[in-house]
């Protein structure tokens, strides 16, 4: 199977302390991968880097040549101002950004596509609602609809089901499976191990370094999970400069 994203000796650092340390590996094209690990393991940082929002401190991220737009990125909800006065339809239509950019108008069929995307996430009829009126679950459905419209071959989801109720999670997992069936590469940061076992064929267990990466059943073993929990969370200001050679 071809490779969608390859990481070569990737280190991502905040203030010279590694959040992701010498990560090496590949996301196969069309794979559905969960990224799990303790808090502070570098999961969100990795996703940010894959989305092009963080520059690697060392090493490389190589994206396979893909059509544009290459990446659709769903950040954690906390980064979005949900009190902003904007309608549901306007948020979803931002998914057309690659086609409309800053200046072009939204065409009739693009608006129809946005309404369809809202229907696909169970929010038909919510077009003119202001996002401040939505519950956390409804708002997450809106963001999924936007990702649907972005129509990207690589989809990055950062804790998409955090603080979301069971029914919404089930509905949105179906959307994730639909993307998988369409051979898109999906990478999701998750915390629910059972959910990962049930829905995600591939797993990267991250604790700054990769504890294990591969088929979910072989990654989420008790030994590996134990190992990831023992990752030192505190960083050490007196730590020596890392001199590890590139693998």
């Amino acid at each position, binding site marked *: 199977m071809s490779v969608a994203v390859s990481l070569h000796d990737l280190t991502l650092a905040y203030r010279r302390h590694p959040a992701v340390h010498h990560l090496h590996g590949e996301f196969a094209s069309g794979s559905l991968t969960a990224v799990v690990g303790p808090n502070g393991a570098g999961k969100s940082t990795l996703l940010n880097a894959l989305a092009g929002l963080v520059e690697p401190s060392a090493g490389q991220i190589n994206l396979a040549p893909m059509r544009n737009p290459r990446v659709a990125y769903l*950040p954690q909800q906390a980064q979005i101002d949900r009190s902003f006065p*904007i309608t549901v339809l306007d948020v979803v239509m*931002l998914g057309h950004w690659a086609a409309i950019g*800053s200046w072009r108008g939204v065409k009739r069929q693009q608006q129809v596509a946005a309404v369809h995307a809202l229907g696909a996430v169970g929010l038909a009829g919510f077009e003119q609602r202001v996002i401040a009126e939505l519950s956390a679950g409804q708002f997450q459905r809106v963001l999924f609809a936007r990702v649907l419209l972005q129509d990207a071959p690589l989809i990055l989801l950062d804790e998409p089901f955090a603080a979301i109720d069971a029914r919404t999670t089930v509905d949105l997992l179906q959307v994730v499976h639909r993307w998988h069936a369409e051979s898109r590469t999906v990478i999701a940061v998750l915390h629910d191990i059972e959910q990962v076992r049930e829905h995600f064929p591939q797993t990267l267990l991250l604790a700054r370094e990769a504890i294990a990466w591969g088929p979910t059943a072989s990654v989420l073993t008790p030994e590996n999970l134990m190992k990831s929990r023992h990752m030192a969370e505190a960083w050490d200001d007196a730590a020596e400069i890392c001199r590890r050679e590139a693998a």
Partner: protein
Amino acid sequence: MTELYDWFIAPFAEFSFMRRALVACLALGLSSAPVGVLLVLRRMSLVGDAMAHALLPGAALGFIAAGFSLYAMGLGGFIAAMLVATLAGWVTRKTGQREDASFAAFYLIALAGGVMLISLRGNSVDLMHVLFGTILAVDDDALILMTAVSSVTLVALALMYRPLVVECFDPGFLRSVGGRGGLVHLLFQTLVVLNLVSGFQALGTLMAVGLMMLPAASARFWAVRVSSLFAVAALIAVASGMAGLLISYHAHLPSGPAIVLVAGAAYIASLLLGRRDSALQFLLRKQSHRIA
């Protein structure tokens, strides 16, 4: 009928300084109120105030170099405020200190420096002029500058409306689709400073922010969408300018504070009587709720 004419039309018909002041208010209100709405939406309401104070040392240097020269003081003020905003933003990005703290630090330095400069080289009348402006002394040059700033602002807002709104509420998305969030932020900052420089000609550094923020803060009690917030805020700003001018003319009051006080009265009225979340709505709805 003649009474209405005497009250509302005659001052403008008879005196050219009142006509100039009126046009200045229209230009200022139309552009700075929408800018204020965006500041409110970005939770940067006090940053406008900080930048207005940051104008002072630049305007003072312009004054010392060239006396009461519109261009020297305007340019100096523009450069000083842009410098403070850029330094504060740079400190926030590099050190992680929150923007409100870094802005406060730099504008206080700038403000004290400005007052020091003026008191070394000018007198207290000069200081009052810079701090409070004189809309009734707006000349043709100042009017051209203000209307130019107003036009540039409205065209720029129209051109960058979409990235500006997205950068406000979901900056991560804008960056992930390759939108130039940093550039949008810089352009917006430039618009804020331009409008403050323009307002400073008429209302002075301390009052210039009044026509920017008070109508913007009032608008949220009447409208929801960003576009309607713009319209309501601009309307309140222009009306406050007109009413303030007339009141200052008839009651022999200083015009700058009169205009800002009218805008303040509009804010209080909106707070009490507005269509959304106002005291009136709260009283009306206290007893009832919908079934779903």
